[in-house]
């Protein structure tokens, strides 16, 4: 492609990205909360141990479930989200294993079970926190089901979900929330 064309297209994308950035910062102060119905796709994903996991059975359970979207080489967003999950497990102490924390990778090409296990180890994850990968197609289906579709890692946004134990609906949380806010939301949806 001629350099000119490349340059023009490139700058156009930069403009878009930066434009989004400015828009988001204003909203980042407080997280946004909404209630969503999610139809969990019937896909089989792979966890950090390389085991196959049928997503429906993992998520449609009596246990409290929290979900987020991360990837192993992510910069600013994932440290904050994962610190939140790690902290929740710490706060729950011996109860941690009774709460399902599920992190979906949005970078299935890179995130192999080995890489995901290493990631969880870094956060001293306890049993109950799974990191799932799969084919691009299946991961796309999951992202779309949660209305959290990222075309690429560069569109990544801080999103977490908590499944309500009462009606199976999902509380969608958008923003880099503090751990106490996450805990509060978790308790409100029936988690103890």
């Amino acid at each position, binding site marked *: *492609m*001629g*350099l*000119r064309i*490349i*340059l*023009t297209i*490139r*700058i156009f994308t*930069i*403009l878009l*990205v*930066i*434009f*989004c*950035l*400015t*828009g*988001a*910062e204003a909203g*980042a102060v407080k997280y946004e909360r909404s209630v969503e119905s999610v139809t969990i796709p019937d896909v089989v994903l*792979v966890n950090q141990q*390389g085991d196959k996991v049928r997503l429906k059975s993992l998520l449609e359970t009596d246990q409290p479930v929290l979900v987020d979207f991360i*990837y192993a*080489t*992510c*910069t*600013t*967003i994932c*440290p*904050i989200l994962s*610190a*939140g999950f790690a*902290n929740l497990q*710490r*706060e729950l102490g011996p109860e941690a294993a009774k709460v399902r924390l599920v992190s979906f990778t949005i*970078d*299935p*090409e*890179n995130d*192999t*079970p*080995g890489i995901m296990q290493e990631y969880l180890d*870094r*956060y*001293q994850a306890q049993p109950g926190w799974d990191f799932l990968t*799969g084919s*691009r*197609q299946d991961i796309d289906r999951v992202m779309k089901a949660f209305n959290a579709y990222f*075309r*690429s*890692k*560069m*569109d*990544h946004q*801080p999103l977490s979900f908590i499944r309500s134990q009462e009606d199976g609906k999902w509380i969608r949380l958008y923003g*880099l929330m*503090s*751990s*106490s806010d996450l805990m509060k939301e978790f308790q409100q949806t029936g988690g103890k």
Partner: protein
Amino acid sequence: MMRSSQTFTVFMTKVAIVHVVVLLLLAGAPRFSGAADQPALSAEEAYRLGERMYREGILPSGEPMQAFVNGDVPVSGTSFTCVSCHLRSGLGSIEGQVSAPPTNGRLLYLPREPYIKGYEHVPSFHNYAVYFQPRPAYTDETLAELITSGVDPTGRSVIKVMPIYDLEDRDLEILIAYLKTLSDKTSPGVSESEIKFATVIVEGTDPVAVESMLAPVEFGIARKNSLTNASAANPRVARMGYNMLGPDLLQKKFSLSRWVLKGPSSTWRAQLDAYYQAEPVFALLGGISEGDWEPVHRFCEENRIPNLLPIVDYPVISDNDWYTFYFSRGVRQEGEAAARYLHGMYDLFSGRAIVQVSRDSRKGNALADGFRAIWADTGHPAVIDIFLKEGEQFSQQRLQEIISELKPAALIVWDDAAALEAFTGLPALADRPGLILASGTYVGKALWTIPEPLRELLSFTYPYRLPQDDIRFDTLALKVLPGKKYSDYDQKIIRQSYITNELLGNALMDMRGEYYRDFFFDVIAMMADEYYPLYERVGFGPGQRYASKGCFIVQLGKGENPQLERRSEWVTR
């Protein structure tokens, strides 16, 4: 009340005390003097310790750094640290809607304006600059306060995303000294008027391959330089160039030297050192070798010189090396993909054997090693390995023996096109393995000549987008060969080098005039996944060093002009 909040309160009290102590110390003569009982550090030692805090989150004492995120979440420095967000160069990151500003001394100790000096009217730079809040220049004291209590020099709290750190004075001093070294002096190979690059060519490489590697990169560089020339002569071009590149990149010419390596690979290092001493370059672009690359890889690692996308079959496989960015894991990646594919269907094998036949050649071994490594991770029983020695033909008889003796559920054959002969009688054989898998790139062009009855019996690894789908990129690839005949070149290599040219241009534009080698790879790490020619999908990310991670399993379709048909997704787990 939650445990972490209590810790936080205690911590904040401590921060306040430390802060007072720091201020008191600063009032006196020696700035940031360490505690009296601690020995003075040499500059190199301080640098090493600072780098370890910045990159690994480990204190000089060897303990993890203690951070608090979002005001209340305690996190160990080994979960993540400065480098995770501010990246290796310290020039910051952009991800989705969140970004981290530069944290190198040079920029911290300058006031931040809502513009970048010299780039006020360049749209992309302007949009970057207004994203961050203006602030006065930091001093050692205000920087210490930012890191330990999350308050910037305007009094604004940054703890929403920037963690605060519990650090002793001396450790803080070491960290700040390190920040001052980050992206400080422009990297070698860059002057006001020029950026020097080189490309490494192993002598004896097929000349068509070499030309195919060079053409797209040389095209890009010639284009860039003619824009620079034209803008010197024509104000309209200059204005356009300014808007796109900014004044600085616009005026810089690019040069590309050819560093040809001769003789055995054990002598390459000395040749590289001599080339580099004669002409320090900013980065190596592309490069090509049909065999070894390791000495070039090591040279780049030790001199911290980025090498962007060399065309090699045997890249160095490492989780931690930094300075060479490869297209893929090379030949080995097909073996790895084969293992994942078999793993996905393992239940169908009902415990029957898997046999891996591999030629004892560099290619055969790379494929078989890749397979074994992934297979070992799956925890399945090891496969039965059979090696073909040099000159030994994989015959029909050998195939029959393997099938009748071992009755494998799956047979993998890592050999070149000559092995296809062994399968001639396959359709008539009883107890055929359910899956027979070979390497599409090792078999090469013969893949398209497989006779009809065998097509549905043989599967192949194929680490590229299928040819019929990749055709749509022909016009793009042709643009980098103006006035030349596509058929004179190796189409695969043209496509690879096309990607190199794209990434180079994009990266330099994203660098905002900050010509640091580490930043060059940092900006590439921040790029979105791409649908480029040749590979179904390529992806980037800090520390990711193999752009294409996928591979299809294919079979040859029916008919006179058969096409490859997918039997798997691009990436299988």
